[in-house]
């Protein structure tokens, strides 16, 4: 009996580890649309994969209407009775859309990211900070990775008619609010196409569908304009550094927004060999891959805060091509902000990357 228990235990453990590992390895190898097209190089195939959701986007693909029901990013049907006058929005990308539509006065609650590290659009940042100081808007903390959630009671007290949440699952506070009868629209952009769809979604909620569709079309045009240039260009290899300190080195892995932006900007991201979005990566791999360009995106919030040591000063990094040729670029806080938020500013972020990778295309 004891022996049987042991054997079972070993089998269960071995299976758990094996399935986890296989799942990890297989997720690297899902072929995309690009690969199935005839006559494309692997690098072009990746650009096509990044572009496909942009190409197939139309404003009409956002289903639903207000007043009525509307489909959110988690595929749920949310019914909204009237165009809301009070919105609590914990998805900064949606705040940005409201601002562009001139509807940001409907905001009564926002993410406290606006107070700390969001830098663009500047006008909106100052506006929100002022309103928070005056008490017209309340700021909430939401850090799901640390288990920090806003208090649903405090959100409810603002009497919002709709709440915009952010995350691939519905956060706990949002469930509580739904139970209290407040409609919650969940945002979880996964591809560049979703970014465009979300612009229209926000527009629909505030009754400005046409204006929003116009913004989304403009973004789409610019994405396609860059993509059609870079698809035939050379593809320099690039390392995108998210964070470097004593505890390790982080990049943006396969499936992250940033890696599809890099693809679209005409680069070969060496981080895409890792099938997770925010991987701690072996510095040895970066040095062995010898990228032609290094982009540092680790400017932290606040001017007085530190910046990572430059690659040229790190032990073992001095011989890299990018370091020797001076092709190490440090993004400003504003640029990082645009690149990392799936909102309208993302196109500017894409253009920043494309200009770094292919200055010749923009002359």
């Amino acid at each position, binding site marked *: 009996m004891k022996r049987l228990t042991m054997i079972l235990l070993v089998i269960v*453990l071995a299976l758990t*580890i094996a399935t986890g*590992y296989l799942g*990890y390895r297989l997720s690297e190898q899902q072929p995309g649309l690009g690969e199935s097209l005839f006559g494309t190089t692997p690098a072009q195939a990746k650009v096509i994969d990044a572009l496909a959701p942009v190409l197939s986007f139309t404003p009409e693909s956002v289903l639903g209407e207000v007043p009525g029901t509307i489909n959110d990013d988690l595929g749920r049907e949310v019914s909204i009775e009237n165009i809301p006058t009070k919105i609590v929005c914990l998805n900064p990308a949606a705040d940005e859309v409201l601002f562009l539509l001139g509807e940001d006065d409907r905001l009564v609650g926002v993410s*406290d*990211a606006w*107070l*700390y*590290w969001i830098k663009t659009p500047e006008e909106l940042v100052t506006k929100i900070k002022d309103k928070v100081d005056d008490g017209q808007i309340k700021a909430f*903390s939401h*850090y799901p*990775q*640390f288990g*920090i959630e806003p208090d649903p009671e405090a959100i409810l007290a603002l009497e919002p008619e709709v709440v915009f949440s952010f995350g691939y699952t519905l956060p706990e506070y949002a469930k509580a609010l739904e139970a209290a009868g407040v409609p919650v629209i969940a945002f979880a952009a996964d591809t560049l196409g979703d970014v465009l769809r979300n612009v229209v979604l926000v527009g629909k909620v505030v009754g400005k569908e046409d204006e929003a569709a116009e913004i989304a079309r403009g973004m789409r045009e610019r994405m396609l304009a860059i993509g059609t240039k870079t698809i035939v260009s050379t593809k320099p290899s690039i390392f995108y550094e998210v*964070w470097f*300190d*004593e*505890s*390790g080195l*982080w990049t943006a*892995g396969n499936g992250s927004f940033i890696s599809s932006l890099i693809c679209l900007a005409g680069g070969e991201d060496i981080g895409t*060999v*890792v099938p*997770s979005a*925010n*991987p*701690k*990566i*072996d*510095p*040895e*791999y970066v*040095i*062995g891959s*010898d990228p032609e360009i290094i982009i540092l995106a680790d400017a*932290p*919030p*606040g001017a*007085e*805060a*530190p*910046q990572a040591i430059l690659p040229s000063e*790190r*032990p*073992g*990094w*001095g*011989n*890299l091509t990018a370091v020797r040729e001076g092709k190490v670029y440090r993004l400003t806080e504003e640029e990082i902000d645009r690149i990392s938020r799936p909102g309208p500013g993302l196109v500017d972020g894409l253009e920043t990357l494309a200009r770094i990778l292919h200055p010749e295309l923009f002359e």
Partner: protein
Amino acid sequence: MKSRRQIALILAFLLAVLGGAMLLSTALGSESIPFSSTVKMTLNKLPLLHFEPSWPPVYEDIVFHLRLPRVVGGALVGAALAAAGVLFQGLLRNPLADPYIIGTSSGAFFGISLAMIFLPLTFSFFGFGITSITAFCGSLGAVFLVYNLARIGGRTPVVSMVLAGFVVGAFLTAIAWFLLSVSGDLHQRFNEVFSFLMGGIRVSNWQQVTILAPLILVSIALSLFFVFHLNAFSLGEEGAAYVGVDVERDKLLILTLGALLTASAVCIGGLIGFVGLVIPHVTRLALGPDHRLLLPASVLAGASFLVLADLAARIAISPQQLHLGILTALIGAPVFIYLLRRYRKEYAF
């Protein structure tokens, strides 16, 4: 009782294992560098021999600047944690004692959170970043606090030390999380905080090694003077006093050494679980409870184990790196259960 000859043989064997583990760990990594190149470029660093480099210069960067410091750092952390584990288990006569039991881990976490929020993070001291330094100080500070809190009328009972350690630890952890929660840029700190809590060898330059190696090695050497006292402690404090041990003085000295070792390990390794708890047990199961052999054998076994665990962390899903704490328990737990079942009847703590 083992003879001197037997002890020497066992230790020589463990030393060879450590050498092998370090060699293997230097030869393997995300980048496949031919074994012969690694050996040749290492020999080139020694006088007398010279091989014409037939490898790209970047390989030397990888081996000497990235792999070797990390391998040596791993060995030091493993040795320090295992030694501290033996010291604390022997001193506290508690099978669940590990290097973190009297608040060292929480002290380090507290120190790190203070640094992240209040100190200029660009500051560095002999190659150590500010968070490493505050982790070290936090660890020592917590032990100092616990020792003084547990001290009653000139004596420091073991029970009150363990309890004070637990309470102070919980308190410091709570403060650390509070500080991190109210700081605005928590999301930026996620990677660093998580890495610290899950453990990982963070040796990024040789300077760190040249400072910590003497500290750890001297502490271990000094601990070897206390092996008889640790044996005496297994009779209980009264028993130890009967055989001529100055109980309170030795308690303080052993505690200080254990705290120094743990603080050094935490400062370049974060919180690596399991090693300091289980390596002493495994060694005790295999070699018996005599501290004269137990301490040095644990040190060597701990160093080898950590070097191999760190190798696994680097190459299991390379080039992505796993957190070391995952590997130490994943590899260590089955080995321990196997040994426990095999030697069950003879286990003398």
